Each structure stands twice: as C-alpha cells, then as structure tokens.
C-alpha cells in the first residue's frame, strides 16, 4: 500500500510513528529479522534483539513506537515487510487485545516488585500465536529498585521468544538503571516536526488543515497533546485560561483566584477521566466476588472481597492523584513555555521558534514591560513548582506559592 504523499517506510503500522524515519528504519529491519526467525530461517545477525529501550522527549511517541513494533512482530502477513496494519495480528496488537502482547502502565506512582515478578513469569510462557511474547513497559523510569532487579534477571537471560520493550523519557535517562540500559538496544526518538504532526492530524483524525497546523505549532512536539487540542474544545479552553495568567495577575487577590482555578480544573479533569472507569471497575469486581454465591466459605469470601475492594479503591485514588498531577503539569509546561518565549523575544533571537506562536502579542507585551531577570525568576518559579509537585507537595500550596512569585516577578 503506497500513496503519493506518504513515504513507503511510514505505511502500515509505522504510519502511527510520527516524524521518526530513522527509528522506523531500524525497527522494521528488526521485525523482518524476527519474521525470519519465526519462519525457521536465518536472521541477519544483530538485527533482532530481546530487549529494547525507547527514549525520547515527552510526546515523541515512545509507547506508540513500541506498540507499532509489537504489532509488526505479530504480523501474520508472510511477505518480507511485516507490519501490514491490516491482518489480525497487527490490528489486535495495536488495539491492545493481542494475547501475546502485554502493556504495563504504572497506575500508581511505581511498579511493585510483586507485579514485576508476575509479569516476568507470564513473559516466559510460549507465545500462543507461535510468534513472540511481547511485554511493553511504559514509564520504565518509574520502576522501583526491586522491580528493576526482578526485570533485569529476565532481560539478562531472556526466553527464546520473549521481547521486552521499555519506554522512558530521555530527560531523565538516569532513572532507568544503568545495568538494564546496558542490556537494551536504545531507540532514541526525537521531537517530531510540526509539519509531521499536522500531517498525521489531517490524515488520521480528519482535522481541518488550519486547525491541525495551529495545534501542531503549539503542542511542543507532543502528538497526543496536539490531537487533544485539535479535537477537544475543553482542552483548548483550558490552555487559553492558563496562558491568560501571566498578564492577568494584576491585584494581589488574583493570585488566589488563579491558583484556585488551576487546582479545581485539574481535579475536575481527574474525575472526568476516572469516574466512569472507577465505577466500571467497581462493578466488575463486585460481580466477580458475588459469583461465589452462598454456602460454605461465604464469610471468608466476604472478607476477601472487602480486602479486594479496599485494594481497588487505593489504586483508584493513586491513579486519580496521578491524573491530577499530570493535568497540572500540562498547565505548568504551557506556562513555562510562555516565560521562555518572553525571554527569547527579549533577547531578540528571531530564528528560534516560539512555544506559543499564537500568543506572540502577549509575549511581546510582557517582554517590553518586564526585566529579563524578572522573566527568568518567573520561569524558575514555574519549574520549581513542577519539581515540588513531583515530590508530592500539596498541589494547592505549590501552585499558590508559584503564582505569588509570578505576580511579584
């Protein structure tokens, strides 16, 4: 399947990997070698390996690339270009329903040792499809030391048909243990160019050209963020509200109004994202527990059910905290981008593109009225707030302190 506008490497499952021709080349060669192994033939040496680490800045599509690779490994089309995107193997792998592809997303703030051991055990089973057992670990930087050690054993002596795909942001490369990193082949993704992002929004999501170009220009290279901004009016409004803050802080009382709005928006977003899912999980658990019926053992079953319910509630709370924090972080990234733009504009560096080109007028106003030092202090306040949230400082306290600093300059 080829078309006039899409390069051959970006067809099939690879079309979701936006703006990463180098990575796609390496991965499709590996998938071809893997297919040769499955077919019982000779693989070109060094092309396929059992452990991969996908790194790249936020939004570069680490997990998307890993999933595309997983799909190519499960592709059942027997030509020499696996990853057709059409066969059952490709489709179920991409949709997350393939029996031999496991995706681990740390729902709390880290993956426990117990979870990792269980995972390593399943990964050692023979693939049901006769192809590969694939385990994708998103945010491998959030592994605890114990979990990383449990994983390391499996990575060091991998079962013959098991493949581990780890994803971690490149801004904290040290977060993935050096030993694990040394056992993996690294796929370094880059920030996709705005043109590639706009292109995928138009082709895959049917977004109008102008809107796609705008979303691609303000998303900071984050494909998912661009899609959200282009397709969800609420997301666009939230961004507007955040970017009104820098010039909107006039009176001392505005500090608390703004902080309150930011925190409440994050809370609302967390419940919007999680409520339906929480309820579904609760009902599923109740059904599963209730299936035992009456009779002997019911009392102990009830005790077990209570424990399981508590456990579920704890996980849901942890997930909600994380959603809230992610939502605030998104706002902080936008804010930091604004102050960076002010600094860039103040120095007159025209060749550097702005984070928020659609806010160029506000940025110019700010650059004309603030000293470079005060713009820098403001930027630092935003970055300090991100760090504070990362180490669990109460959001309201951290945000209010930040906005106080933004107000004073």
């Amino acid at each position, binding site marked *: 399947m080829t078309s006039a506008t899409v390069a051959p490497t970006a067809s099939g499952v690879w079309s979701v990997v936006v703006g990463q021709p180098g990575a796609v080349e390496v991965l499709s060669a590996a998938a071809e070698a893997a297919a040769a192994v499955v077919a019982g033939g000779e693989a070109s040496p060094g092309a396929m390996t059992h452990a991969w680490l996908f790194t790249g800045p936020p939004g570069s599509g680490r997990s998307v690339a890993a999933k595309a690779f997983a799909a190519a490994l499960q592709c059942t089309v027997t030509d020499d270009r696996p990853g057709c995107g059409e066969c059952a193997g490709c489709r179920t792998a991409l949709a997350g329903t393939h029996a031999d592809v496991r995706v681990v997303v740390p729902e709390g703030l880290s993956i426990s040792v117990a979870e990792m051991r269980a995972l390593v055990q399943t990964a050692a089973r023979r693939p049901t499809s006769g192809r590969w057992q694939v385990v994708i670990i998103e945010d491998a930087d959030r592994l605890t030391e114990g979990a990383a050690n449990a994983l390391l054993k499996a990575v060091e002596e991998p079962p013959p048909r098991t493949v581990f795909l780890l994803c971690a942001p490149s801004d904290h490369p040290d977060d993935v243990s050096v030993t694990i990193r040394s056992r993996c082949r690294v796929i370094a993704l880059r920030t996709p160019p705005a043109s590639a992002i706009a292109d995928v929004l138009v082709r895959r999501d049917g977004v109008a050209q102008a809107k796609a170009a705008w979303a691609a220009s303000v998303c900071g290279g984050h494909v998912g963020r661009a899609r959200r901004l282009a397709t969800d009016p609420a997301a666009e409004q939230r961004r507007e509200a955040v970017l009104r803050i820098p010039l909107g802080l006039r009176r001392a*009382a505005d*500090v*608390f109004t703004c902080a309150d709005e930011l925190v409440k928006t994050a809370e609302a977003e967390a419940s919007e994202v999680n409520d339906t899912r929480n309820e579904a999980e609760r009902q599923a658990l109740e059904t599963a527990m209730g299936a035992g019926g009456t009779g002997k053992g019911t009392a102990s079953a009830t005790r077990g059910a209570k424990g399981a319910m508590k456990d579920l509630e704890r996980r849901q709370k942890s997930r909600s905290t994380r959603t809230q924090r992610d939502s605030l972080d998104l706002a902080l990234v936008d804010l930091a981008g604004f102050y960076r733009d002010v600094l860039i504009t103040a120095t007159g560096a025209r060749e550097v593109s702005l984070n928020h080109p659609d806010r160029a007028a506000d940025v110019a106003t700010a650059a004309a009225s603030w000293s470079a030092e005060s713009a820098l202090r403001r930027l630092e306040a935003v970055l300090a707030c991100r760090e*504070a949230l990362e*180490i669990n400082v*109460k959001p309201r*306290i951290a945000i*209010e302190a930040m906005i106080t*600093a933004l107000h004073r300059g």
Partner: protein
Amino acid sequence: MNAPAVTPDPLHLILGDEELLVERAVRTAFEAARLADSQADLTRVRVTDLTPPELAELVSPSLFAEGRVIVLEAAQEAGKEIADAVISYCAHPADGITLVVVHTGGGRSKVAKELPAALRKAGARVTECPKLTKPADRDAFVRNEVRAAGGKIDPEGVAALVEAVGSDLRELAAAASQLVADSAGKVNADAVRRYHRGRAEVTGFAVAEKAVIGDRAGAMEALRWAMQTGVAHVLVADALADAVRTVARVSAVGRADPFQLAGQLGMPPWKVKKAQGQARGWTEQGLAECMQVVAGLNADVKGAAADPDYALERAVLRIVAAHQQRGR
C-alpha cells in the same frame, strides 16, 4: 482551738522516682494535713539546700500554731549532718507538723541510703512510687486513671492510648481524664484516635498562630512541645501553610466587612476576622516570602530534608523574620 477530727500522720516517706506518682503522694499528704487544719501551708525544700539549724527552725512550733507541711525533696542526696538531724527529729516529731521525706530509694552516701529504713522504723507512712517499667504496669496505670475519672476503657483502647501518647505518665493521665470526659465514660480505640488527631491539630495550630503574629519565643516553644509530644511533622507544616495562606488571602482582598468577605473567600466569618487581626504588621513582600517558605517546608517534611525537625524550626524562624520586615 478545737482538736482536729483527724490526726494526720506526722511522718511520711515517699519512696521511688516515678515523678507523677511522687507528686500525687505529696499532694495526698498535704490534703490530709489540710483536713486537720485548713490553714496548713506547704514548704518544699531540697535536702541538699538545707542545714540542720534551718531544719530545726522549719519544724519549731510557731507562735500562731498553724499547721505546716514540710517536704524534703531528693533525700537520697542527703549528707551525714542533715540525715542525722532528720532522724533525730523523727524520734520526737513536733505537733502540727507533717514532715514528708521524698527519696528515690537509691543514694550515694551510706547515711542517705539508710534514711528510708530509719523513717520506716520511726513509723512513717510509706508510699511506694517505683518507676513503671513493665508494659503491664503501665496498662494497669491507664486503666486505673480511666476508672478514677469515672470511665471504662477496653484493652484495644489501652493499647491505642499507649501507642499514641507514649509512656510518660503525666501525659497518659491527662489523656485518660480528657478521654473520659470526651467519650461519656466509654473509652475505646476509636475515641483514642479521634482524641489524638484533635490534639495534634491543636498543637500544630498553636505553632502557626504564634508564628504568623511574629511571636518568635511563643512559636518556638509551641514547636518544641509539638516535637516532644510526637506530633507528625506534616501536621505542623500543614498548619503553618494554612495560617500563612489564610492571612495572605485575607490581606490580598483589602479591609472589608468580615461577613461580606466570608462568602467571597469561602471561609467562616470568624476566621476572616481573626486573619484580619493577624494580617496587621505584615507587608505584601513578607507574606509573599512566607508563601515560598511554607511550600518549601511541605517538600521538606515529605522527605526532601534530611532533618525535618530542623526544617520546621527554620521555617518558623523565617516566617517570624518575614513578619518583622517593615515597609519597602
């Protein structure tokens, strides 16, 4: 003067070093003397501060013949002279005088060690107050305290109380009587937890209240007390943050009627009014600094600082210092 209905014991020996129990035994002796003579007064003196002539003067009959209770503290440190003077007095105690000898049971010199035996021989009323070292004794103490206050406590309640309060008898006793009063007599683990939470909040709150009005000595004392009684660092940090941001929020909107502001700020009117009072003397700059201080502190008590005690102390001092800035 009529003869007293009750004749108090003229000699008391209080033996042991469990402070609270010793204190109570002294009080009991004093109360007994007061029953006989409502004018009786109390004199406390350390044995090492006393010479034999001074002792003679203390126990000599007074012109006005009012009763006297004389407490000789730390008798285990007595030297030979004063020990002999005490023993010879015991042979002929004076009328209307109650002599209370407080002795830990130990002692460095031979005479000091022998003092308790001599007092027993002289017929002193003995109250033993040994340190409660065994958990079972401490638990029994808690049960007794609750019973004495007119309540009942179950074993889980006892365990929870000891866990929350620690082994200091004074604290345990205070908590026990408060708990009986709070829970209408029936004390259980839930009541203990509620009590302890409330107390911790009150203590953290006290630190914050002093800090935001710039009372350095008061804030530091309250903080030390909070740390000694084991209030969680996070609770004190939260109280400080809440106090600072409340003052900052209220002063940011300017002076206005508390009842009007209450709705706008989503706070009860009394809180607004109080914060308006606390806001006096603050500059906007000072408050802005404090907002950074409490945010940093929140990180510190959540593990960013190696020593959270010190982090709290430093934050309190910085808030007080920011309060003292005048104008810009």
